[in-house]
């Protein structure tokens, strides 16, 4: 029976060695990550924080509506292109976070001095936060995260563009 030919000790040794190698590489690599992931806390935008940001700032619904009214603020939809095509905040552009590659992103398509509001579905999604972080790394300094997202916006029947 083939089961008799399997050495359990070898299996354990392989797994344990690989795990040790993994942790060793992670601790030595400059791209290593913390063993326990901690959700990042973002600061809320207010007049005192100012518009120039080195980290993305969170905005609430009222602030999102105010920014929406200011024509020069561009909304960015971080969801995938199928969700965007179905419906999105009126005037928003789509930069799907899941396929975003900062190495290949053409920064000339987005003015770095412009303020941008990034959103995704709502409270339960982190895609807007991840995209916002990537944009900050690329040198965009006015990045805001609308946490309430598309679900809050549509619940209040605010302007959308749909198929």
């Amino acid at each position: 029976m083939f089961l008799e030919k399997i050495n359990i000790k070898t299996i354990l040794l392989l797994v344990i060695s690989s795990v040790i190698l993994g942790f060793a590489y992670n601790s030595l690599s400059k791209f290593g990550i913390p063993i326990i992931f901690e959700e990042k806390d973002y600061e809320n935008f207010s007049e005192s924080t100012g518009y120039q940001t080195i980290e993305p700032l969170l905005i609430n619904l009222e602030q999102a509506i105010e920014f929406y009214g200011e024509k020069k603020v561009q909304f960015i939809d971080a969801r995938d292109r199928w969700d965007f095509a179905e419906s999105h905040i009126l005037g928003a552009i789509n930069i799907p976070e899941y396929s975003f590659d900062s190495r290949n992103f053409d920064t000339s398509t987005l003015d770095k001095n412009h303020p941008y509001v990034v959103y995704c579905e709502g409270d339960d999604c982190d895609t807007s936060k991840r995209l916002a972080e990537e944009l900050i790394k690329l040198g965009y300094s006015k990045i805001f995260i609308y946490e309430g997202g598309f679900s809050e916006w549509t619940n209040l029947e605010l302007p959308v563009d749909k198929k």
Partner: protein
Amino acid sequence: MIKNNFLHNDYFLLLFRILLGTLFLFAAVEKISDIQKFSVSIQNYRIIPAYLANIPAITLPWIELITGLFILFGIKTRESAFIISCMLIVFTSAIIIAVIRGLDIECGCFGTLMAEQAGFRKITENVITLFFSIILLVKGSGKFSLINS
């Protein structure tokens, strides 16, 4: 004794080893190149708590790497195939759960290289890969290996 059953054929065993070994090596290297992104893929499945997602992100690609290498060279083939089969069962189960919950997420199977959706196509690919892995588990490396096992 003539072995005319293809499952006994050493050339097929070699072929399965090359396919499986290369696949897992490739997947491992892609994940190791961006552990952060792999951790995000794991979090997207919403099966384990987000704060624990970095642990499999750090360790799984190395298990893939080592077992992929061993299988490719035919070293400790049965044991490596056992580990690979277990991983495939876990990955496929996670994708099935994601499909049932209606999650529209990226598979995370090949790190940053290929954005594949976690869906039926991926499940089918995994089942086929699991089939090759089980054959190697049962039959061993065949005669074309560094250490016949």
